């Protein structure tokens, strides 16, 4: 019997109705996944066209909703409960939410990319299901009460006749325990945000009390009867392959159950976690030497000079060289960004129970359905016989070790025929995770005689290998690769084809150009002469999306460069930005951040600052995230110790506009956390390596911002747009920090630093280069 049958039958017995109906054909339009829209960027699954897959109403009137977008620490679980309470007009505490379980919830692909708010809070998917259900219930009530639907009111899950409230019927009496048997109705009316009673309010998160008291069950706390503990033994160097495993080296280790080897994958299983660690440490494994790594010192030049590249043009007005040649002044700069890691505070963990014909995996994956497909490939099972149940782990910020450790647990459980829990050693996660991209970015502008920008040219190089496994590439993460699956193939392409449609998902296109492709302008700026050329290069390390992937790196370069240009023409950086923008909402966040910071109009560097001791300065940066998914501007105030090169961030002012705000306190929490994540990444985080292996393998060798570190005061300004679509908010603030800090350092000292992180050594070097 298939696993799904078990769970569905059990569920029907226990709590009302659920039919997961996945009729894929013809649902693209009804779900509103229009090509090119934010929710169609490949991160979403097909969802479901049937209302019963999303909403079930019990006989007691409780509403159970099923979502394919999971809580990652960003408050989405509570916000989705608010959404359902709002759309169905039921009290918040009468909503139950079931998230991300391949036997119970719709396939919504991956929870990532700041896409959950746009995907589930607009006019499709979960929000549309809520609206469809409310209207269907009102229709049922109209028949029951003998009154037209427009004469009915809904409150607290009870439908009543407006003129005679004594005539009423509760949801539970209308449909409790039965199914709707209707599709999502694209004409169902979502409530106007001005009518909201639950959504839009700072509802406290429902999971925090359990977290604060040690009661919350993370994936790390999943305990299955008969569960054993696994530990992996990763290769000692990049490119090393397995020669031999000496099982006699662990003979007699207490509790050892099995040594597991499959191609280059090596692991041990024991009765207790400590026993597994002992066995893994003692196991004698021989590996070939690694394949060697390019020098870190010259890595950015290695990228730039790589022969094999995949080239893409985002915009190309084909007049850039001509305009540069005729410009009154040309400004150039090169920016460098390191590999960085997700470096979750808790190392990745999964529990797998693999039996001969089926498997269950408890995982903190962002992608239960894609993981089901790839775990099935790893195990040689049919996907429908694999069940993946999401259990929250430590915050991931992108594709951390959650998927790879799920394969680890599955492989070890498969080998011993019993449930196995694996939590990675810190070094095993840090040395082998999918790093955020390094970048080298060349910027050039030509200026008019009046100081305005005539033409903007951007060219970048960044390394890629692997990424999210998706539905069919387990080799995109280390464990899949070790057992013989290949990462997605690198497809070189030179020259780049001319752009066909404008898209700015990576923020490769600066905010200040028109983004004109095929006669249509999708950008936010006024500069018409523009070229943006990017080169993907094969990476020696696995890479993958890390909070604001590429958007952060590109925004660092664009927003630092804009500040440099303004300084060249002695213009105020705020006024100079506004002069080149056309998008009113982007201008509004710039102005709001400047106002909150009491910004004084001036060119940089700040007049009167001394060249010794501590110098204070402020800088601004802004972004329209992914070109269409959230506006943010930040002003940073910093102190720079010109003796030591140490940068201390004193204050951050953030203005954000992500459409109608679903939960203002949740939004603030995201903006504050994103801002400090950005500070940590800008000032200290960098993956390091030698000629064989990664050397950033713990919190001494990969330096983050600790809770007691130099933590600035943060002020947030929320711009609530009651009209228009909900946008992402989890990745806006992190995107603008590095440029805001670099611009503030320049304002304070006159030294421009074009390489992240801004370590004291780099700051001192830049100070030494001042004229």
């Amino acid at each position, binding site marked *: 019997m298939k696993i799904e049958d078990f769970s569905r039958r059990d569920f029907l017995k226990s709590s009302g109705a659920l039919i997961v109906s996945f009729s894929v054909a013809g649902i693209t339009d009804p779900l509103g996944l229009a090509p090119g829209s934010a929710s169609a960027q490949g991160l979403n699954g097909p969802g479901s066209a049937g209302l019963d897959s999303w909403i079930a109403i019990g006989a007691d009137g409780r509403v159970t909703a099923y979502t394919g977008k999971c809580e*990652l*620490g*960003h*408050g989405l679980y509570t916000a989705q409960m608010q959404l359902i309470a709002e759309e169905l007009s039921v009290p918040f505490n009468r909503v139950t939410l079931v998230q991300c379980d391949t036997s119970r919830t719709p396939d919504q692909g991956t929870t990532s990319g700041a896409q959950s708010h746009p995907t589930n809070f607009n006019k499709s998917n979960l929000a549309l299901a809520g609206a469809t259900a409310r209207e269907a219930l009102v229709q049922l009530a109209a028949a029951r009460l003998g009154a037209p639907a427009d004469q009915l009111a809904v409150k607290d899950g009870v439908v009543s006749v407006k003129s005679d409230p004594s005539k009423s019927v509760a949801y539970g009496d209308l449909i409790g325990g039965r199914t709707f048997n209707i599709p999502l109705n694209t004409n169902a009316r979502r409530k106007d945000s001005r009518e909201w009673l639950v959504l839009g309010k700072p509802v*406290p*998160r429902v*999971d*925090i*009390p*359990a*977290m*604060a*008291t*040690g*009661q*919350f*069950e*993370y994936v*790390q*706390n999943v*305990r299955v009867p008969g569960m054993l*503990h696994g530990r992996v033994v990763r290769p000692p160097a990049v490119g090393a392959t397995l020669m031999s495993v000496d099982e006699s080296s662990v003979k007699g280790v*207490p509790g050892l159950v099995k040594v597991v080897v499959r191609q280059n994958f090596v692991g041990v299983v024991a009765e*207790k*976690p*400590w*026993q597994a660690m002992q066995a893994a440490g003692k196991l004698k494994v021989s590996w070939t030497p690694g394949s060697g790594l390019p020098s870190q010192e010259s890595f950015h030049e290695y990228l730039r000079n790589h022969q094999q590249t995949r080239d893409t043009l985002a915009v190309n007005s084909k007049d850039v060289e001509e305009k540069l040649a005729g410009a009154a002044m040309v400004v150039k700069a090169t920016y460098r960004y390191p590999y960085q890691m997700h*470096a*979750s*505070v*808790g*190392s990745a963990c999964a529990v797998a129970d693999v039996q001969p014909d089926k498997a269950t995996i408890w995982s903190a994956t962002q992608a239960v359905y894609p993981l089901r497909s790839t775990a099935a490939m790893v195990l040689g099972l049919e996907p429908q016989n694999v069940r993946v149940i999401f259990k*929250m*782990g*430590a*915050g991931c910020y992108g594709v951390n070790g959650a998927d790879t450790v799920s394969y680890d647990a599955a492989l070890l459980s498969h080998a011993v025929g019993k449930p196995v829990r694996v*939590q990675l*050693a*810190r070094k095993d996660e840090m040395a082998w995770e999918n790093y955020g991209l390094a970048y080298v970015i060349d910027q050039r502008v030509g200026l008019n005689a009046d100081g305005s920008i005539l033409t903007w040219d951007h060219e970048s190089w960044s390394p890629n290998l692997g990424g999210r496994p998706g539905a069919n590439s387990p080799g995109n993460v280390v464990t899949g690769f070790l057992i013989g699956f290949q990462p997605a193939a690198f497809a070189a392409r030179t020259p780049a084809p001319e752009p066909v449609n404008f898209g700015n998902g990576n923020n490769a296109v600066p905010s200040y150009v028109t983004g004109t492709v095929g006669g249509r302008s999708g950008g936010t700026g006024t500069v018409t002469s523009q070229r943006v050329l990017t080169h993907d290069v094969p990476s020696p390390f696995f890479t993958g999306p890390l909070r604001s992937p590429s958007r952060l790196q590109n925004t660092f370069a664009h927003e630092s460069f804009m500040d440099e240009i303004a300084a060249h023409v002695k213009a105020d950086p705020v006024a100079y930005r506004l002069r080149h923008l056309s998008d009113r909402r982007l201008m509004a966040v710039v102005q709001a951040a400047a106002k909150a910071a009491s910004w004084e109009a001036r060119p940089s560097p700040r007049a009167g600052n001394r060249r010794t001791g501590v110098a204070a300065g402020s800088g601004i940066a802004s972004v329209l995230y992914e070109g269409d998914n959230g506006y943010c501007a930040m002003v940073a105030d910093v102190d720079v110790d010109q003796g030591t090169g140490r940068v201390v961030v004193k204050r951050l002012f953030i203005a954000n506009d992500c459409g109608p705000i679903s939960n203002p306190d949740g939004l603030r*929490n*995201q903006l*504050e*956390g*994103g*801002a*400090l*994540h950005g*500070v*940590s990444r800008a000032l200290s985080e960098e993956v390091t390596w030698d000629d064989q292996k990664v050397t950033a393998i*713990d*919190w001494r060798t990969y330096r*983050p*911002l*600790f*809770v*007691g*570190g130099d*933590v600035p*005061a*943060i002020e947030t300004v929320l711009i609530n747009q009651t009209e228009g679509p909900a946008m992402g908010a989890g990745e806006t603030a992190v995107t603008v920090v590095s440029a805001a800090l670099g611009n503030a350092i320049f304002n304070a000292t006159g030294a421009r630093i074009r390489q992240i992180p801004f370590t004291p050594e780099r700051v001192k070097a830049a100070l030494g280069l001042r004229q």
Partner: protein
Amino acid sequence: MSITLKVNGRSHTVDVDPATPLLYVLSDDLALNGPKFGCGLGQCGCCTVIARGQALRSCVTPVSSVAGADITTLEGLGTVEKPHPIQQAFIDEQAMQCGFCVNGVIMTAKALLDRTPKASEPEIRQAMSDVLCRCHAHTRMLRAIKRYADGR
């Protein structure tokens, strides 16, 4: 080897290798969820418990070294229904995101404030200087600690 531990006021006798770090006994043998494995190196704080009045990193503490000592874990402070005031302060300030690290943040701050009730802000920051939160809820956490300290 049989070792008796006093955890959250109750005695437990476990049969383990005496070199086993306390964390694994708490999370595996005693099935507690509060202390967590973050790094296994004593660098991040996720595994913190309070023993003999001190914040202790249980991932690098052999279980034999705390036999007989009073050990308090996060679940020993309060419950969802009746949180300890420091837990309540973190709930009131919504001072976490994924919440994985909050065990280390709360237990480290509690040990400091038990010992130094009038701890200054620099003292609090010093105590938290090797406690890690990767969601970067730092400002709310520091505010929650202050709220608890001021409210006593």
